[in-house]
């Protein structure tokens, strides 16, 4: 079908005869394709984008500054708002960082619960991508089908944590304490509610089914392939130079997954594969995420089989003292490597908190990858990077 050479050849023939001035097309900050307040100033020559300058910061909330006036417990509530479609996964690296500073280690059951919820957050984040990406290409129905299934995942998260998007469930050395019903319950942690395993495995079956449906509806669709295959190719070297991580990097053939490398939660008990594809185009980025939903469902299934019994909270002093030190703690978020560089000076609040948010780094490649693409491909490529503006602007 269409090869890039064909486009370029036909273009070359035209541009010899017609020299037209470039037009500046402003996309955003309110624009249907930017799902958030991203603004692109694109210099277009007809349909071809000659140059693009992303403008961000419309949603800058200054989390790094706010974190300097908040205690560690308060920051946990804050950070799950950075990338709101996978709120739980944002908390994990932060709490692991504080645990590393204080030398407290969460008990195995708490770690398993963290792992289950992280994977549920990953599924929900990828389902948002699976739903919104075809929408940018014009297909409206996968949106509703994927969001319908995401609801089952969010219900699971809410059932355990009490919040659909902002769980605020991790505590240093364990998970959130119970409250209400007398002071004794407060000393216990919020364990999984009855029937959770049953409902979780049912929901995971649904995830497999929706993946099959999406395969039929989207993946196999020739029009989708025409729009995404060989579009927006990012070679591995470029991806590394721009700091791309997560599915965007794995689609370029680099098997970089912190779940395997860093082993920050009991992932080595679980048998799962890293989804890697070689092409680095939009279709591969889409496919990696679709495969990761299946892998995450696999992880959740195994985790609910293997989850150990035991305490949920390690012994933590009543007044938590975080010693002086600097730690970089990172974890594999649905969108890639999410890290916190915590500088503690021994106070109640961190002296400085650098948030290495994934979408910000993933978005730095936009000017490079969008250069000399068509306007429809601009939308396709931008969507395939799967960013959340809250994660970009912090």
């Amino acid at each position, binding site marked *: 079908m*269409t090869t890039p050479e064909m486009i370029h050849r036909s273009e070359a023939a035209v541009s010899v005869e017609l020299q037209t001035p470039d037009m500046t097309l402003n996309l955003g900050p309110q624009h*249907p*394709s930017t799902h958030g307040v991203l603004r692109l100033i694109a210099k277009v020559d007809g349909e071809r984008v000659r140059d693009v300058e992303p403008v961000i910061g419309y949603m800058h909330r200054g989390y790094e500054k706010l974190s300097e006036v908040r205690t560690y417990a308060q920051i946990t509530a804050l950070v799950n708002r950075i990338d709101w479609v996978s709120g739980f996964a944002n908390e994990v690296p932060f709490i692991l960082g504080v645990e590393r500073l204080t030398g407290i280690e969460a008990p195995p059951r708490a770690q398993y619960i963290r792992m289950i919820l992280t994977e549920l957050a990953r599924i929900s984040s990828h389902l948002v991508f699976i739903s919104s990406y075809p929408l940018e290409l*014009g297909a*409206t129905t996968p949106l509703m089908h994927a969001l319908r299934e995401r609801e089952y995942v969010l219900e699971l998260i809410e059932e355990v944590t009490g919040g659909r998007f902002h769980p605020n469930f991790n505590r240093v050395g364990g998970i959130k304490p119970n409250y209400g019903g007398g002071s004794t319950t407060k000393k216990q942690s919020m364990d999984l509610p009855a029937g959770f395993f049953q409902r979780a495995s049912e929901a995971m079956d649904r995830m497999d089914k929706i993946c099959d449906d999406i395969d039929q*509806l989207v993946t196999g669709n020739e029009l989708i392939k*025409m729009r995404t295959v060989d579009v927006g190719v990012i070679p591995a070297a470029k991806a590394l130079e721009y700091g791309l991580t997560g599915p965007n990097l794995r689609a370029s053939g680099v098997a970089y997954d912190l779940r395997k490398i860093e082993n920050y939660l009991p992932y080595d008990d679980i048998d799962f594969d890293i989804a890697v594809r070689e092409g680095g185009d939009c279709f591969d980025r889409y496919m990696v995420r679709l495969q990761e939903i299946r892998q995450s469902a696999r992880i959740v299934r195994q985790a609910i089989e293997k989850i150990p019994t035991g305490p949920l909270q390690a012994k933590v002093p009543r007044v938590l003292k975080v010693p002086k030190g600097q730690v970089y703690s990172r974890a594999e978020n649905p969108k890639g490597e999410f890290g916190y560089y915590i500088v503690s000076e021994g106070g109640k609040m961190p002296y400085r908190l650098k948030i290495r948010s994934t979408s910000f780094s993933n978005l730095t490649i936009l000017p490079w990858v969008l250069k000399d693409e068509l306007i*429809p491909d*601009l939308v396709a490529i931008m969507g395939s990077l799967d960013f959340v503006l809250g994660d970009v602007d912090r």
Partner: protein
Amino acid sequence: MNFWLELVIKLVAVLLTVLTGALVVIYAELKAGSHMQSRIGPYNAGGRWGWAQPLADGLKFLQKEDLAPAEADRAVYGFAPYVVMMSTIAVFVVIPFGPDLWAADLDLGAYFLLAISSISVLGILMAGWASANKYSLVGGLRAAAQLIAYELPLVLAVVAVVIQAGTMSLNGIVEAQADTWFTIGTFEVSAPFLVRGQVIGFVIFMIAAVAELSRIPFDMPIAESELTMGYLTEYSGIRFTMFFLGEYASMIALSAIAATLFLGGYALPGIPDSLANFAGPGVLLGKVAILIFFFIWIRWTWPRLREDQLQRLAWHWLIPLALVNIAVISIFKVAF
């Protein structure tokens, strides 16, 4: 009958058909589309199943302020929706709903139909240019390129039908399809052109029709995720309603044309001629409904193409294929 009375009756009939038809199709799209998406669609307006939703939407649009950008070319901007609407309504004039149920039976019916429906390109270009908006401009130009590219396969597909029928009158084409194809013993078999070797022509016509309608997968002119709403970006209120109704009316028009040319129009094998005038509209509407459902179905299933892919599809595939189709049909026409 008095000429003027007849004219008024015909005009009112056509207008009513177009407008109520468009409202019904809008409702069908809302309802079918939402069920395909696991939603329930309109529910509250009008009591049962939200049947009044299109009416309510229409009323809402009428109340909206009719905005025009400061830089817009007011006259052209204001006139554009009516050009689109007019070209759509004029198509209905020649479509026969029964042996005697037509507004005008032109000898050059098929020709008139193609000519008048391509006027809508003008309206869209006017809208895109006069809006003084870059999205509108790009959308308008995309629409122009697309409509002109797909006008050709559409015309060529019709040419094959005209050759087979031997007439350009739409009534004549329907009658040609109702005529005996061959006989088995004393049993006379008649069949629409679709069955009589126009499969390729029908497929080309339908693809081109979707492109003419600027519906998914060919909705680049209004591609929401790229151009917000293309040439419609700046329109609001009554003028937007015109475009909106026009889109759905032309969906009916193209379906009716396809039904007339390829599916036997008002004729259905087995319905005697004496009943044709009564059953005709129903038969035609049934066929139109099937085709419209097809349009709705693919709109809620497929993504959109890219502009260059769309052009390539037209020029590299559809037009050569349509020419081959004409040649084959002509050979068969002469040989048999």
